[in-house]
């Protein structure tokens, strides 16, 4: 089991996806003359696509339960955005409280849908189709067609970055911004970003090493040293390069902290907890899961409630970025999220897929969106291109699956 071929075989889809992302980044990097990967654009990419990523995480769980989707998330983002306008602008509540209420609105909507799906057994497709109409309608009722401005914390979350704790402390010679001929860049490297990157990556490397040691001590099987070291070193390098890159411009976007936290939490739930395991099992074989004592109704309920919660977060993020609560926001968001999951390797029948896959899928979507707009591709052509990518990704999946079955 410790040989390379086995490890690669087990993770072929994951590597394939990452490879696809890298190829797409390089492609658009070249055709945009490097503009795509400029630090300023990278932070923008993160902010612009945060909503896909957040929604894709929740959507991945829906799909895992058995190929179910949530069609209502776009409308729910709109509803949450309207709630933000209502609470913070119309009622004048402090933005912190407004955000809390808005996110809870999302959760409540999720609980509502989860109830119908899990306990009344209305198929998810239909429940969420209804939700799509209902939530959009409520948004329009609240906003009455008007756009309301948002302020305070909304703006911070949507567009802010962490202030530099020690500006102008990084020696000049470390700065390669001039070499790259970046425009509008700050004079100095952002110390906060560098420190955060360095601390996180060091902690992670330490964790990997200590974890391996303690496993070994307790007599469990461990991955070979070289593979652990390779993994740790490459992780360390990638993270620090990335943080250096962002440090050349505005530093650490607040949104990025949110995304990393969500990724970490949900990966943990999916891979390390009992409910996570139960979701995979019921997607793999519903009857077998039930006969193993899994409460599949409760799982369904939780998954859709959680989707609502995440749609609430995505709604706040979206509202914050556009600095307004508006009636048309969120259109087709559900399709972006579903597409990201399938690009990321989810099985349309459930039981197969990872949060990591959803994240990479979301970034593939995001880079394509951003890159295609940069080169000024017609929006309709953009839509065609995205459709084709989803199709090809799943086709590749099917192909590689039939290959592996034939050995």
């Amino acid at each position, binding site marked *: 089991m410790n040989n390379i071929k086995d490890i690669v075989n087990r993770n072929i889809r994951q590597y394939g996806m990452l490879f696809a992302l890298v190829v797409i980044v390089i492609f658009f990097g070249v055709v945009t003359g490097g503009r795509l990967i400029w630090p300023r654009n990278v932070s923008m990419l993160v902010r612009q696509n945060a909503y896909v990523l957040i929604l894709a995480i929740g959507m991945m769980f829906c799909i895992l339960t058995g190929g179910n989707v949530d069609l209502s998330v776009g409308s729910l983002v709109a509803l949450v955005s309207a709630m933000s306008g209502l609470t913070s602008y119309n009622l004048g509540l402090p933005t912190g409280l407004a955000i809390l209420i808005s996110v809870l609105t999302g959760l409540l909507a999720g609980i509502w849908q989860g109830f119908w799906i899990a306990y009344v057994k209305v198929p998810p497709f239909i429940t969420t189709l209804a939700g799509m109409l209902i939530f959009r309608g409520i948004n329009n009722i609240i906003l009455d067609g008007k756009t309301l401005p948002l302020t305070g914390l909304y703006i911070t979350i949507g567009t802010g970055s962490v202030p530099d704790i020690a500006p102008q402390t990084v020696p000049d010679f470390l700065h390669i911004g001039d070499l790259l001929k970046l425009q509008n860049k700050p004079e100095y490297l952002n110390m906060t970003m560098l420190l955060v990157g360095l601390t996180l990556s060091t902690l992670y490397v330490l964790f990997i090493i200590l974890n391996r040691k303690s496993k070994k001590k307790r007599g469990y099987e461990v991955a070979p040293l070289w593979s652990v070291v390779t993994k740790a070193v490459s992780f360390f390098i990638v993270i620090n390069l990335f943080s250096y890159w962002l440090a050349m411009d505005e530093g650490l976007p607040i949104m990025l902290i949110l995304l990393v936290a969500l990724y970490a939490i949900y990966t943990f739930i999916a891979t390390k907890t*009992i409910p996570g395991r139960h979701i995979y099992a019921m997607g793999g074989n519903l009857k077998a899961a039930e*006969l193993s004592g899994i409460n599949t109704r409760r799982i369904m309920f939780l998954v859709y409630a959680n989707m609502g919660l995440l749609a609430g977060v995505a709604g706040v993020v979206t509202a914050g970025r556009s600095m307004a609560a508006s009636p048309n926001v969120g259109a087709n968001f559900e399709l972006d999220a579903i597409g990201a999951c399938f690009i990321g390797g989810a099985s349309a029948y459930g039981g197969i897929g990872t949060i990591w896959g959803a994240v990479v899928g979301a970034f593939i979507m995001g880079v394509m969106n951003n890159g295609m707009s940069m080169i000024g591709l017609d929006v309709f052509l953009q839509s065609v291109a995205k459709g084709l990518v989803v199709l090809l990704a799943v086709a590749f999946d099917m192909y590689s699956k039939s290959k592996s079955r034939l*050995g």
Partner: protein
Amino acid sequence: MLEYILEMINITKEFPGVTALSNVNFKVKKGEIHALVGENGAGKSTLMSVLSGIYPYGSYTGSILFKGKECRFRHIRDSEEAGIAIIHQELALSPYMSIAENIFLGNERAKNGVIDWDETNREAIRLMKQVGLKDKHTTRIKDLGVGKQQLVEIAKALAKNCELLILDEPTAALNDDDSNHLLDLLKRLNQEHGLTCIMISHKLHEVISIAHSITVLRDGKTIETLDNTEPVSENRIIRGMVGRELTDRFPKHEPKIGGIGFEIKNWTVHDPLDEERVVIHNVNMYFRKGEIVGLAGLMGAGRTELAMSIFGRAYGKRISGTLIKDGKEITLNNIGQAIANGIAYVTEDRKGAGLVHIMDIKKNITLANLKAITRGSVINEDEEIVVGKTYRERFSIKSSGVFQKAGNLSGGNQQKVVLSKWIFASPDVLILDEPTRGIDVGAKYEIYKIILELADAGKCIIMISSELPEILGLTDRLYIMNEGRVVGEMETSQATQVDIMSTIIKSSGGR
């Protein structure tokens, strides 16, 4: 005339991490019934998949000669065109379509792309008569029992004008009557129409009664081909299969029976689809610790329904009665509660309800008892690997490792995974529903040993089996069920097959 209709020469087939077949040679004479036997995972199903083009030419090495011509099948269609039809162990019929539609599924009788219903029906009726199926041709498959579904599969194969028919464990899920009917049919088709058959089976007495030759596979290699025109003995075949003499079919055992551990009182269950219909009538049973209790009966006697209704109401509506465990009454409203109260039920429907096929072996084993490997709220995946390995060794689950997907295991090894799952759940009451279906003789012995071990550890074992010799060989006491009622109870040491059958027949006649 050609002596051999089929020659498979030096077939080698590898999967990542396993060599399923290595240099297998397999020859079938024209007009014979050829049995293919071997332990679970020996490669029988794989060999037939190679033959029928499920694993296409190029994914294996070696050559296949059919009617003297070299064949390179890339798809099942190719082998069907050549005259080879395969009936898989898991039947492949469309439940909501009629018998006639299923017989011609993928092989429709049509004129210019429009289905010719007259022709379809006429032919279907003719084929149904040939296989001895007396239902109407418009009956839907879901309304037929497994035995009759098998017959539809055979009719379907005949509709393709096949010359070589492959049956993978055709009688595994059938009761004795249906099995005999099927075997008679095969004999008749063989004698009257000269149909050549390859039959995979773990039921050696059937093999001996029907086959002309028997080929034994072990660990992906051909061991020998026996001539069965003069019937060989079961022990002779077993020696080839397991590579040693197997003198006893059942392990020797001194039961250590303790007090009553589990009781069912006045248990009545109604059909979930038709709430007026009573499926289980006022059943009373008790089970002692360390005792193995058999539930004997024909298919449809209500044994599975009884077991599932106890198991947290997994089956049935309007359930009444009491369950008493260790002297205390318990209520089991859902499966989770049943498991928490130490009840386990090993399903007879391994494929449909026993396993998560896309999950690996270790995850399947821990699924019903994840708490045991969870600290705080974190699943300890290292511990999971250890658990997986322990059971893989204990049951000798033939696989490339604990990371192999359960769906890629051979049928018998899948069963071992399901058993491992429930034993890992460490129940006090273990209900086994047809636990050795589709399992080879050697592995059966291993499984019996494990069952006895569990009994000796003081568990109550309830064993449902359609194989009377197994019930008689393994249990300490048995209940006989018929039409949802308990119609007899015997000490196994005083029971014979004849006693059991006559009890069943008497109880049906009396009503």
